[in-house]
């Protein structure tokens, strides 16, 4: 039960500015994911919220109260570390009950609460073990259990799944989503994995170089990225970027010349467009094989995943990824033509900012909770 606000947070390490003025609003019971490339400041931001690091300037507010000067324990938050950071010399039970012990909670009460949390995470059979006798996934669950026992107002996670193998990661991802519903708590989650961000978040905060690039629901970021960085970062495989030339621009569309010489009109607002050299962004899944299509290229690499086949196609000087049907029969060396849905294409100006699309995608306002009740979906 808590909200969090960040106002113009700046963090400097010995003169280097690492966080450059971050503003953020986290609502009650929201699952917020910080995502961005390595070194962009995600952990630093999270650690400042946790109180493990001081903000150089700016305000951190929980439930409307400034807490910059409040110690980490008194903030009522719990953190799950990437390394799990379990206490190696204590049993699972003692690990989970450590905060209660420090808080002077009686032994019986402590045991009851630990067992309660252990039940949620299926940790009961492991309570007597030491961390080194646990698998990675079990350690992870103990670390989460330790957080649950504190009954925090906000959970903080710093890349909690990055040390697990792929299968376990998927399983823990689902478990965390379930936990979020069960505990009804506010959660802030750091990852550099955009799939984790897309699947778990109500709200994604894309960071780069200590600056927030965009905040929005997963579908919002996917369909309406604010700039080229977000467009390239969200979505897998990555969005293709083609250098195009402006032919004409109007409030109802921008006509551009494609690398092959053909022209097409993208339905974006070009009323304030001044640049001539633009970038067209098309996601691999929005490109189709089309005999009369405006783009053409030669296949250089084929990756077959069964359901989907990724074609890497050379179009002039760019290598374009196409997610094609699993059953395409083409071979390396084939020259093909491709088409794309104009409404799914993105156009970026010379500053790499996206031109606003004319129509909002029907799912852009959808958030994860809406998935539960189909009647709400469609959010227009």
């Amino acid at each position: 039960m808590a909200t969090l606000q960040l106002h113009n947070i700046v963090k400097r390490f010995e003169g280097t500015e690492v966080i450059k003025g971050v503003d953020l609003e986290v609502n009650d019971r929201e699952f917020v994911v910080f995502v961005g490339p390595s070194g962009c400041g995600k952990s630093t931001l999270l650690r400042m919220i946790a109180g493990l690091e001081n903000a150089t300037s700016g305000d951190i507010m929980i439930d409307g109260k400034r807490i910059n000067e409040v110690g980490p324990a008194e903030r009522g938050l719990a953190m799950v570390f990437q390394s799990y950071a379990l206490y190696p010399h204590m049993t699972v039970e003692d690990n989970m009950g450590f905060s209660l012990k420090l808080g002077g909670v009686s032994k019986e009460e402590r045991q009851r609460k630990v067992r309660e949390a252990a039940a949620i995470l299926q940790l009961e059979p492991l309570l007597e073990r030491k961390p080194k006798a646990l698998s990675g996934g079990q350690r992870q669950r103990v670390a989460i259990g330790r957080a649950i026992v504190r009954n925090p107002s906000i959970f903080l996670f710093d890349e909690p799944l990055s040390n697990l193998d792929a299968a376990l990661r998927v399983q823990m991802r689902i478990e965390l989503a379930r936990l979020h519903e069960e505990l009804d708590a506010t959660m802030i989650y750091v990852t550099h994995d955009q799939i984790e961000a897309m699947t778990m978040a109500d709200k994604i905060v894309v960071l780069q170089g200590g600056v927030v690039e965009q905040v929005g629901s997963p579908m919002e970021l996917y369909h309406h990225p604010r700039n080229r960085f977000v467009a390239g970062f969200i979505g897998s495989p990555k969005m293709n970027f083609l250098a195009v030339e402006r032919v004409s621009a109007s409030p109802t569309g921008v006509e551009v010349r494609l690398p092959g010489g053909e022209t097409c009109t993208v339905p974006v607002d070009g009323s304030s467009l001044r640049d001539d050299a633009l970038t067209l962004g098309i996601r691999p899944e929005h490109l189709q094989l089309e005999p009369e299509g405006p783009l053409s290229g030669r296949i250089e690499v084929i990756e077959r995943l069964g359901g989907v086949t990724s074609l890497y196609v050379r179009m002039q000087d760019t290598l374009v990824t196409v997610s094609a049907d699993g059953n395409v029969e083409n071979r390396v060396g084939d020259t093909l033509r491709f088409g794309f849905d104009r409404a799914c294409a993105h156009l970026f100006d010379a500053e790499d900012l996206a031109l606003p699309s004319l129509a909002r995608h029907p799912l852009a306002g959808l958030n994860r909770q809406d998935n539960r009740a189909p009647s709400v979906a469609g959010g227009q």
Partner: protein
Amino acid sequence: MTTLKTKQAIPAEGHLATTPASEARARHTPLVPSAGARRVWLTLLGWGIALLIFFPILWMVLTGFKSEAEAIADPSLIFTPTLESYVAVQARADYFKFALNSVVVAFGSTLLALAIAIPSAYAMAFLPTRRTKGTLLWMLSTKMLPPVGVLVPIYLIFRDFGLLDTRTGLIIVYTLMNLPIVVWMLYTFFKDLPRDILEAGRMDGASTFQEVVYLLLPLTLPGIASTGLLSVILSWNEAFWSLNLTSSNAAPLTAYIASFSSPEGLFWAKLSAASTMAIAPILVFGWLTQKQMVRGLTFGAVK
């Protein structure tokens, strides 16, 4: 070098490419001695070095059981052991009084040094500043100053504060003497502890003191123990300060040994007997704790 020559000796390049495995085998078998032989050599070498280091001590112990006449005679391993030197030594000075001083001073200074060094090392390891490294090096560099250089000032200070020939005085000097090493060692042990663990403790509501008591100390206990053991041994063996700052009341075993060397000339057997008694406790102590010592000293290396 040898492998290179063999390789050049192989004439046709074609052969080289066809059977690389057999060629490699042919090249290596005669050159590398078998693991068994290697082990025997290493063991012999180890014993040799150990014996060389231990020999003076062994000789001293043997001499202690000789009569004065045998002790200055031509070195010989064959003699009739006698306790007369031990009896004579004990008749002249009360061994147990000196031994008690040694114990009190060695352990007292070690505890004091740890009490000061643990917080210092904590601060340096977990809250470093730009000057931490420099401070550490500076502390260590004070060990390079010859102690005699500060003998006069310390002597005068001790005289004015009434610390001459007191255990407290020796404890203070030994603490100061060992502090740089103790801080340095603890610093390296603490530095090896993942920060996350302490931060998790802080998130769990631990005060700095609780963090140290519940997390840091139990997790670095092997390191702390071996640091303490080293400090005890260094204090036990220290002679310069104990000879200069004590006379009778607080004199530890080093002073006890020294008292047998000067006045009436050298009595080798008695001197050896006294020395044997002086080093016996620390030798036994070291023997009992050697596992701990080694474990602590390799703490960081094997993790």
